[in-house]
């Protein structure tokens, strides 16, 4: 009796641990992610509110690091080696409005590169919790 209840429960618990690369596929794998990130880093310095923070960034290096990060988050075969989010944004006193502005630029880039809306939100769901390391409350 206990077994019949426990087994499905254990299977359920095990599910999230399984490698799921459906988001990675939906984004068109690494090339698809890179295309969005190239677009994204082109748009960032032009943004009215947060653009000035990205004037000095090397677009190629930045896009490459972001690609690794999103590829890993999406379940792809990548391993992000870039700076820790908390350390990278320390002392910047970013507000939630700055964070959301960045999300908006990303949304524009994702839409321009034809990422389906549901796949956009699935990626944002992985990125959004980073607000705790980035935004100064």
């Amino acid at each position, binding site marked *: 009796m206990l077994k019949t209840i426990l087994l499905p429960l254990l299977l359920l618990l095990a599910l999230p641990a399984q490698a799921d690369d459906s988001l990675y596929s939906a984004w068109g794998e690494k090339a698809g992610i890179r295309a969005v990130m190239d677009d994204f880093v082109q748009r960032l310095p032009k943004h009215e509110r947060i653009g000035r923070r990205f004037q000095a960034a090397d677009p190629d290096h930045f896009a490459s690091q972001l690609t690794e990060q999103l590829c890993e988050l999406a379940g792809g075969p990548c391993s992000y080696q870039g700076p820790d989010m908390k350390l990278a944004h320390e002392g910047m006193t970013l*507000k939630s409005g*700055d964070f*959301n*502005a960045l999300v908006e630029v990303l*949304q524009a880039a994702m839409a321009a590169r034809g990422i389906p*809306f*549901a796949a956009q*939100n699935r990626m944002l769901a992985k990125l*959004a919790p980073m607000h705790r390391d980035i935004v100064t409350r």
Partner: protein
Amino acid sequence: MKTASLLLASLLATAAAQAGSGKLLLTGGVSTLDGAAGGGLSPWALTGSYAAQGEWGATAFATGAKTSGYGLRGAGAALAWDERLEFSIARQRFDTENNLAPLGLPGLQLKQTIVGAKWRLAGDAVLDADRWQPQIALGLLHKRADPGAFGPTLTGPLGARRSGTELYLAATKLWLNHSLLTNLTLRASRANQNGLLGFGGAQDQRWRLSPELSLALLLAPQLAVGVEARAKPDALNRSVLGTGALKEDDWFDAFIAFTPNKHLSFTAAAVDLGRIAPALNPRRQRGAYLSVQLAF
């Protein structure tokens, strides 16, 4: 002096440029009929406008609903600060058309003024995507009804009060992974027909805790569809007019919200307001709802 005013002007200009622009599309909800941010019928834990951390924002709205027997118009505004506090005001005018003709009151308008405050207690409905905890807010709506020539009957034999306060606790969560927003609101209220028929009755002065549920699916950055269900008290069910004469039902709607940009949104809905004074008009009041909101 001149320098100071120049400085002030530039500070204000900076504030205006940043005011109410820091939140993502539709994450301030739309304006409820009662003025607070939420769905159409139910206040949510979200604060209105696009004011993010440290920002001020404002919204203004106009709403019209037409059912088979009645018409309802509302308008109002809300002020939000820091994704934390929201203040709102709304006016409603309910057109009873010819339903009250048997009482000698054809064309009577029931009016109501509502002031509201909402305080976010915890959570971030949108950004805390890896947690199940919702954004939680506590809200208050103070309502004052102006039932016109129906007033003496309402506050006399029916025993309702003209003004009343509602308290609500709202929990909102955006399941970003599924592009789905859910909201549960618990409202403590004595309002009859949302307050348009006053508060409580001669036979029933108790507060009721009523649940309200909203679901919204984001289809595109600018487009959401959803449904709402709102339970209501029923204090006038037993009255001197006979049991059931003023029975009220729960409210339902199915809506579509479209926001072409951060300053403008439209909400259209099919509403079911249940029976309203069934002794005078026994039909369920189904109809259309249209609302426009400006945000700054």
